[in-house]
């Protein structure tokens, strides 16, 4: 097909350009479908019957309502006066063994004194996108008696679709400390947050409001760390909670698994173990488990690496003394191990709080490290199809 242009010259129909565009649109469709699937996928869990209330983070800061940072808070109130505890997971959604541990906790929790608040998706926005440039799988699967449970593997920070652009330098509020630019979307660098700040700062502020308004006595922030990073397999505690964390680390090391304890540095701002303690009366503790998946030297980023934690490059690094926890290919760092560490780590620090502060006592049960070692993670989940619909939730 040919037609005349204004100069009277004949032009060909741009077949090649149109073909290129059509092929690009096909790629965009198939690629976009993958991204869309992760963005809108819902994780399902069945709560234990002790659930008394489901709040939203926007209950503590209304400007979060309708945003992707609004996230559910599950409350288990024994009805018996005691202390209040917060268990917060997936602040960094590329560490999703933390949300898995929260689901196992909530499916099996039994509180007989005090009140427990659980946030399984601390940064819900960040859990809806993959880590940019890292070729992570979108999901991981946990085998259960009723089929596979699917959970998202997200990014470290808030999804750029929800907060963008990043500045050249992130100036932390209120310390005015200069941090890396991408940390403006990192929830664990934006505490104590601000009421009228960026989306991530507002979510951090809402968490602070939750801690202050609900009089949370002990706040536990669960994370995963690369094993070539010194702060791994450890508690990081604010100075007011250092005694209970140190005692908990000693007890765990003596009875179950190696656990270190570090004091929260006063000069590094924006982190939960620092700002939660400084801007509220809570006892702030952060926990880290070993997650080889996020180490820099590992091979292909596969779901198997995520669930089993076995990587030969990392094993070689360990042989040369470059890792901060013992590591070998035979054991790796499987999901049950990482979740079990968090669940027993939280129980032990609660136990120590009960001993140091009897007036804040909380009596609670959920599966422990030993339980997960014996049964693996999937054993503790309940079939949503057979459960009471009032206790089935999608996040």
């Amino acid at each position, binding site marked *: 097909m040919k037609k005349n242009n204004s100069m009277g010259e004949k032009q060909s129909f741009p077949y090649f*350009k149109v073909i*290129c*565009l059509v092929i*690009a649109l096909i*790629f965009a469709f198939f690629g976009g479908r993958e991204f869309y699937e992760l963005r809108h996928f819902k994780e399902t869990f069945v709560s234990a019957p002790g659930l008394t209330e489901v709040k939203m983070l926007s209950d503590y800061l209304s*400007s979060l309502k309708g945003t992707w940072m609004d996230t559910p808070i599950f409350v288990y109130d024994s009805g018996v006066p005691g202390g209040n505890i917060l268990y917060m997971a997936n602040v960094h959604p590329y560490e999703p063994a933390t949300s898995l541990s929260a689901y196992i906790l909530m499916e099996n929790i039994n509180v007989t004194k005090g009140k427990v608040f659980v946030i399984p998706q601390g940064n819900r926005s960040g859990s809806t996108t993959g880590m940019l440039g890292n070729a992570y799988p979108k999901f991981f699967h946990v085998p259960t008696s009723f089929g596979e449970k699917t959970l998202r593997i997200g990014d470290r920070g808030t999804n750029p*679709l929800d907060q963008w*652009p990043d500045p050249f330098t992130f100036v932390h509020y209120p310390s005015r400390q200069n941090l890396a630019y991408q940390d403006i979307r990192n929830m664990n660098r934006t505490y104590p947050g601000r009421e009228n*700040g960026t989306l991530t700062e507002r979510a951090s502020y809402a968490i602070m409001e939750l801690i202050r308004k609900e009089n949370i006595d002990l706040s536990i922030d669960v994370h995963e760390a690369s094993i070539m990073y010194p702060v791994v397999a450890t508690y990081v505690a604010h100075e007011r909670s250092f005694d209970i964390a140190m005692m908990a680390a000693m007890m765990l090391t003596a009875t179950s698994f190696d656990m270190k304890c570090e004091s929260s540095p006063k000069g590094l701002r924006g982190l939960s173990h620092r700002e939660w303690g400084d801007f509220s009366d809570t006892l702030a503790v952060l926990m880290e488990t070993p997650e080889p998946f996020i180490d820099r030297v590992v091979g292909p980023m596969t779901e198997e690496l995520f669930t089993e934690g076995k990587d030969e490059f990392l094993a070689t690094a360990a042989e040369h003394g470059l890792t901060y926890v013992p590591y070998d290919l035979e054991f790796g760092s499987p999901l049950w191990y990482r979740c079990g560490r968090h669940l027993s780590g939280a129980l032990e620090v609660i136990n120590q709080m009960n001993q140091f502060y009897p007036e804040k006592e909380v009596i609670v049960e959920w599966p422990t490290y030993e339980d997960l070692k014996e049964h693996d993670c999937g054993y503790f989940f309940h079939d949503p199809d057979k459960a009471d619909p009032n206790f089935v939730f999608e996040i």
Partner: protein
Amino acid sequence: MVFLEQVIHIIYFIFAAFIGFFLLRNLFKRTSRTGRVYDIVYAYCIIPFLLRVLGIK
């Protein structure tokens, strides 16, 4: 400030749409670098801007 943040965020999407449109226009109407390799590059580069405008990535 929340409103200002929202405005900046929306402008970012508008910019993505503008650049996507600019790339589309230059795919069909450009005077320099008229080779087929550049057709492929222009078509390929439209993808992220299109997805961003659609709120997918």
